[in-house]
């Protein structure tokens, strides 16, 4: 039987505030265990939470970026359940009145058609601590450094129907959150992770199926795998006329595998109620306007900007804007050396290759934007040859040494003197008569051979263009 697949995502993203969401401890990944902690975030008796302004502003910013309505009054509630990573045995979260309601993002479905994924809400809550399973001591070690880190939960409607769509949606959200600079979205560090809800129903049917929930997925691959597995499992059950039981699977950091956490019969009752320590607070329109002013251009806008104002091709602009770090780097480089197309070309052909060799996950360019701009400027103006430019690029990638100084010290400037080059070219022509014969017979490789020899003798400094023209002039005569 054929089934419709119904998928909804709850995406959790850690906000990059300075301090935690309800206390003044440092919000920083890692650190010695239980050193970014205070009475509030480890839930000592008597400790009380105070919400962080910046965390609220970032949540508003995320909401504005996806077209959410911002509630004028927001309420923090307690979600009560026992788990060792949850110091107070309740998580401060939002239920009836989150900061943001509605909105949505557009993705492309498998046929390249635009599809709008609606959002239900974005709410602000606190992250839990980290559990490390330790069989040697027969227990679980707890580090609460992450406990109380601000987390937004972006809840979609169940508008997706395949793993591809879910991944496209997640990638889109990740891009937006990075662009508006509210989250690093480092999936491998868990600063972006998601829960997937999935259910199947007979094709065309309007009756909702029983859903399974998979929690704590922290890579695109795990999302794909989880969805594909669930689709297979549920369709097999349905085909065989068996019942799908509502269940939750949790991919636990501590044990690095997923396990069924609970079934319907002992379905959690979270007993949400307004946190009496945290009165509701007002979000004035003026605050929303203030946040709006800090909103950077989103990717689509940036692409338009690059195409319309900088003359980049649609494709180049789209590759360049895929990662916000690259956009920032590019913008900085062209502020020193205003030849966007030239810079973009070099980035796409040479720099991105380098990045991929290094590390796929985090895009970090170790050459300062100014140094990189100088290198390209020297190349573009003919001061250095392409060969020297490539060589220097590889070198300063490791050292970030001043490329101008290197060119100066080592005398790497390109030789553009036509007379000098002509003398060398004539010498080569006399030396290699066989290649001259090849050239005359129409073998263009001979020209490259001459250029290669010339570069060898000048350590790459001869202007290849001038040399090529001279060789042609002489041999075509």
């Amino acid at each position, binding site marked *: 039987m054929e089934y419709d697949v119904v998928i909804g995502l709850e995406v959790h993203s850690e906000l990059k505030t300075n301090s935690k969401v309800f206390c003044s401890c440092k919000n920083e990944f890692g650190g010695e265990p239980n050193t970014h902690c205070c*009475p509030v975030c*480890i*839930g*000592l*008796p*008597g*400790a*009380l*939470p*105070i*919400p962080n302004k910046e965390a609220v502003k970032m949540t508003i910013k995320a909401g504005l970026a996806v077209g959410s309505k911002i509630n004028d009054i927001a309420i923090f509630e*307690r979600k*009560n359940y*026992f788990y*060792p990573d949850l*110091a*107070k*045995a*309740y998580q401060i979260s939002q239920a009836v009145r989150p900061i943001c309601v509605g909105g949505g993002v557009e993705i492309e479905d498998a046929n390249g058609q635009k599809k709008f994924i609606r959002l239900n809400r974005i709410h602000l809550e606190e992250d839990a601590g980290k559990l490390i399973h330790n069989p040697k001591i027969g227990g679980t070690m*707890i580090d609460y450094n992450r406990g109380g880190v601000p987390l937004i939960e972006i809840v979609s409607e169940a508008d997706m129907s395949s793993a591809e769509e879910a991944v496209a949606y997640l990638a889109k959200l990740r891009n937006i959150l990075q662009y508006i600079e509210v989250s690093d979205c480092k999936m491998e560090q868990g600063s972006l992770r998601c829960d997937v809800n999935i259910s199947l129903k007979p094709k065309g049917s309007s009756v909702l199926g029983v859903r399974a929930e998979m929690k704590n997925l922290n890579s695109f691959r795990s999302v794909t795998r989880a969805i594909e597995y669930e689709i297979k499992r549920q369709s097999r059950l349905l085909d065989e006329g068996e019942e799908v039981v509502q269940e939750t699977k949790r991919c636990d950091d501590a044990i690095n595998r997923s396990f069924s956490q609970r079934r319907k019969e002992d379905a959690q*009752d979270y*007993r949400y*109620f307004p946190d*009496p*320590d*945290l*009165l509701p607070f007002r979000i004035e329109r003026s605050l929303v306007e203030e946040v709006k002013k800090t909103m950077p251009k989103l990717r689509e806008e940036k692409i338009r900007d690059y195409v319309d104002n900088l003359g980049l091709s649609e494709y180049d602009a789209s590759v360049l804007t895929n990662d916000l770090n690259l956009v920032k780097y590019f913008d900085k480089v062209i502020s020193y050396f205003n030849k966007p197309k030239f810079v973009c070309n070099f980035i796409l052909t040479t720099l991105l290759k380098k990045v991929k060799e290094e590390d796929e996950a985090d895009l970090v360019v170790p050459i300062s934007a100014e140094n990189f701009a100088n290198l390209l400027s020297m190349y573009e103006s003919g001061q250095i040859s392409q060969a020297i430019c490539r060589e220097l690029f590889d070198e300063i990638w490791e050292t970030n040494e001043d490329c101008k100084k290197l060119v100066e010290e080592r005398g790497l400037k390109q030789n553009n003197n036509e007379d000098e080059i002509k003398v060398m070219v004539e010498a080569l022509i006399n030396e290699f008569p066989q290649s001259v014969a090849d050239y005359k017979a129409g073998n263009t490789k001979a020209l490259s051979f001459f250029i290669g020899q010339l570069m060898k003798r000048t350590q790459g400094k001869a202007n290849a263009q001038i040399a090529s023209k001279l060789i042609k002039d002489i041999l075509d005569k």
Partner: protein
Amino acid sequence: MNIMNETIENVSTMLKNKQISSVELVKDSLSKIEATKELNTLHEVCSESALQKAQEIDDLRAKGQDLPILAGVPIVIKDNISMVGTFTTCSSKFLENYKSPYNATVVDKLLNAGAIIVGKANMDEFAMGSSSETCAFGPVHNPRNPEYVPGGSSGGSAGTVAGNQCFASLGTDTGGSIRQPSSFCGVVGLKPTYGLVSRYGVVAFASSLDQVGPITKSVRDSAIMLDTIAGYDANEFTSAKHSTEHYYENSFKNSVKGMKIGFAKEFFESLQNQEVLQSVMNAIDFFKSNGAEIVDIKLPHINDALAVYYVLSSAEAASNLARFDGIKYGVATTEYKDLIDFYVQSRTQGFGKEVKRRIMLGNFVLSSGYFDAYYNKAKAVQNLIINEFTDAFKQCDVIISPTTPSPAFKIGEKVDNPLEMYLNDIYTVPVNIARLPAMSIPCGVASNGLPLGLQLIGNRFSESTLFNISDYFEKNCFSLREVK
């Protein structure tokens, strides 16, 4: 003269005039505590740190430094208030060995004012109770008659002041826990307006109702204490941004002329005890004959306040006490099947009966299916009661009532009937529900020899009005202390 019977006002003057040193005063306090330790008012006595602090104060005074009024005065705090270097047990087995690594804001304030904290007072476990019999370390005895309960939950705090072991104490009041024991022990108890005194570092029972307040021997001492502990705290989101008032300096007018005192018959309809009734009527007559006006007011839903209280306070308590899981602090069972069993065994071993009952009740009203009918309904009735008080205070300055429906009862008398025990708080609870300030002051002695208390309820932030009228009553009508 027995110095331990004196008020803060008097000993402070003596300290200032160097008629006595703080070290001597602390020694007197410690020996009185030792001599009357069978009252079980205190869980911990901080002899060493108290004497050391007293010496520091004496040294400063010797250098001629001008010190705050509380400097060098022995004070006790309830054992649900966090203080570095002491245990904070909440009189629970669960926290028997718990030492807070941080100070409550009120402790910092007391210490900054030079007060000497000599001990931590026993209480009903986690402040849940009206008799201090749910204390895990044995019941507290009423110093007026040790066979009787001191009231609760701040029974140790009230008992230590009534027993002249110290000069004042801090209690906490969620449904009457300062006023009821103050009434039973014959001392002055103030429950301030919600948000006036910081809750930071005070172990929460019901966050939206809890309030710290002073228990003292006189009304004027109560104002001194409130001056020290009141004020906005940036560490508490429910803290009120109310400017400090200098209560001690500004409250006392020595007159009640023209004052409007609200009389709500709903407070008296169910009152059975004639002695209690008579003592309040006498007070009313006294105020009337001294120029105050008695105004009839209506508080039609005040008798629903106790039900509201049990729903809301238990709901909050169930959640507040969930953090006691045996992992970060407290009792951890050594034998368990798995994680869930570890939680269950640790909590079952660590908590007493009453605490368990409230947690169960709280989870009942919060659980799906009952949340609307109980929690939300109670919130709605709370709003109704607040509105009724708001209307009432358009017609009067204070509202008068008994503090409790009866004087102190015998230890063990009500311990098996929770509902009857709960009914003790019927007059005090509406004040917490409406987030108002109220005082209990002694207003008579019952035939069993135990004190009776008068409750005066003020509008929000009208503590100075309460101080004035209570002080006038204490000076001119009734006091358990011999007035000079």
